[in-house]
């Protein structure tokens, strides 16, 4: 019954090759603003560990691991602010299944997913006709350093090399020191691989991203709590002030709600939740994850005082990352609008 806990332990242990157990962020800090904003060697390391095959079914040559294992991994990556687009490559593997290329699985090449059509919608329709792709894909993580894109449309998923005619990539620097990209596709010749599981994979990836935000929030809260226990003002530890204590308990409550919701949803996904429940539960995880990450980031800055607004403080790295990734996988207004429909359908 507890297969997944053993698997998770192994995955989390192996992820320590990417994320230092002591929380050291020197690597993360050094990578900011350099090239693509991540380290290809680290992508290869993740590939060696088999992380990109987690969500590829066993019959398609993958590990066939569950969402609970994935969410445990993503928490570790979030806590360590890992800049490599590991979640996006795991998503590509899940979309492509048996068609997931060997060198993408090994991390020798970098493949990321481009699924979202526009910020105001959560659709991945794209435009595909007569063997050609036209349209835009937004919010592509890791695009600046990617070799291939798994482009998702309503008709299936296409593997698109970055130098393919018809593809232009516009990137913008992000606060965390990385890049976020938009793909412009015009009459791009592509083979469309059918992907009946597309909607489910997007929900899985959204949930995994919520788990990343959970890990990030958890660690940012811990750093803040530690600071409250050493920082003195007026001859007292600031953690002894009731006004701050009560705000800390609110962060803790939100954090535990997020943890419970993410892990319960992962368990439901692994044990076969109905489609309507899947959509609803992935969305409410995402809403709470974004909200909690931003709450803790804000409060962390305030409780660090002036130190919280310096670049040299560790907490700043968490704040910048939260601001950069909290609203991926659906801006809250779009998620809430969709929930208004899915909640009514379920309850």
């Amino acid at each position, binding site marked *: 019954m507890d297969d997944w806990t053993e698997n998770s332990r192994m995955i989390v242990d192996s992820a320590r090759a990417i994320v230092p157990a002591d929380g050291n962020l020197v690597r993360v800090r050094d990578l900011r603003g350099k090239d693509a904003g991540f380290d290809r060697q680290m992508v290869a390391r993740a590939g060696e560990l088999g992380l990109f095959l987690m969500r590829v079914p066993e019959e398609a040559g993958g590990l066939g691991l569950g969402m609970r294992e994935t969410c445990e991994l993503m928490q570790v990556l979030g806590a360590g602010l890992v800049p490599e687009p590991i979640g996006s490559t795991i998503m590509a593997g899940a979309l492509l299944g048996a068609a997931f290329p060997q060198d993408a699985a090994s991390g020798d090449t970098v493949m990321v997913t481009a699924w979202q059509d526009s910020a105001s919608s959560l659709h991945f329709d794209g435009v595909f006709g007569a063997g050609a792709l036209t349209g835009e894909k937004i919010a592509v993580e890791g695009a600046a350093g990617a070799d291939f894109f798994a482009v998702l449309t309503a008709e299936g998923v296409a593997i698109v090399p970055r130098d393919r005619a018809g593809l232009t990539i516009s990137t913008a620097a992000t606060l965390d020191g990385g890049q976020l990209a938009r793909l412009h596709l015009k009459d791009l010749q592509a083979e469309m691989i059918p992907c009946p599981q597309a909607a489910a994979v997007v929900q899985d990836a959204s949930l995994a991203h919520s788990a990343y935000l959970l890990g990030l929030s958890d660690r940012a809260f811990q750093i803040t*709590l530690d600071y*409250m*226990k050493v920082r003195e003002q007026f001859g007292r*530890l600031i*953690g*002894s002030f*009731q006004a701050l*204590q*009560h705000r*800390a*308990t*609110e962060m*803790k*409550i939100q954090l*535990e*709600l*997020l943890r*419970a*919701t993410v892990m*319960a*949803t992962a368990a439901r996904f692994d044990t076969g939740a109905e489609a309507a429940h899947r959509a*609803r*539960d992935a969305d*409410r995880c995402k*809403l*709470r994850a974004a909200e909690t990450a931003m709450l803790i980031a804000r409060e962390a800055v305030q409780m660090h005082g002036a130190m919280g607004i310096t670049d040299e403080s560790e907490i700043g790295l968490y704040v910048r990352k939260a601001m950069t990734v909290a609203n991926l996988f659906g801006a809250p207004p779009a998620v*809430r*609008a969709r*929930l*208004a429909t899915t*909640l009514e359908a379920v*309850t």
Partner: protein
Amino acid sequence: MTADFNAMSDDEFRTMIRDFVETEYPGMPRFSLERLHWDEVKPWYMKLSQRGFLCPTWPVEHGGMNLEPGKHLIMVEELERFGAARVHDIGPVMLGPLLLKHGTEAQKAHFLPRILSGQDIWAQGYSEPGAGSDLAAVRCEAVQEGDEWVINGQKTWTTLGMDANWIFILVRTDKSVKKQAGISFLLVPMDAPGVTTRNIENLAGEAEFCEVFFDDVRVPLDHIVGGVNEGWAVAKALLGHERVFIGAPRLSAAALSRLEHLARHAGIWDTPIFRDRFVLLQCDVLDLGDLFQTYLDKLQDGAAIGADVAMLKIFQSELYQRISELSMQIAGPDSGLAQPPHDDRRLHAAATYLSARPITIFGGSTEILRNVLSKAVLGLPN
């Protein structure tokens, strides 16, 4: 009647409880947000008692059902789904488990059957005018004289105390030691000479509480539970499932369903501005459900429940309050009505709003619980 309920499937058990409440519930109010008094609720108390359903957590040999947490929750859910009135449960829920844990054999043999039979209705006497959140500051005093305790002082916020014929109280029995160390737990008949009560009307206009005064009230020495000066530990002892159940999402879910009814009645259900706020509350209720389930799983596994369980009560009670606040806005000019509009209780936003007030005060105020979390869970300094 001594069926092993835990051996039944959840569905079988749920059906049994549902059939029971649907066929046996007396002709009395359902879905009442105010507590009913003993003369109104007694028929239902007796039905539960006769069927052996009054004390779900007690051992079977003492007349209980020995229900495991999962089954207990199903029972609570079914009774609330039907809208069954809450009975006078201080005996079944508080004193019974407390006597089972700390009482003498004689106390158990005497008092437990009288709770089951409805002979004794218990009230809880903890709070005092100067000891609310700071419960250990109790001043109501008991002095040993010969083979009796002589009690002087006052208790307050005694829920449904006017209906009770017994009260358990925390009293000061040693003033020379740290305040928690000088407290004892006594059982007092309400008809003892020197006991008087005065009702307190609440904001809803109901007399749910009373003050209880003790003037030279005498009870035998064996009316103490636990040892002399051990009352604090006795009172703080775990109340089993209740510590977790108090954080269940069902009260908020029910309030949310009333809010939906209210919004449909007001004609704004389909407006985006309302629905967006409703969606956030729905998500909160569902997320609370997931957190609640983690604690239920711990109970089922027999794992210890730590101080962190207070997170459930804080979030649940504040969520219920937020729902009640939106309900008032939707009710508009009807928000101040003393009686349900159109004779429809579900439209009575004021009742929801008022019922949302005490839940962040009683059973550990939100502020005290946050203090506890800060120290015991987050390890923040004094």
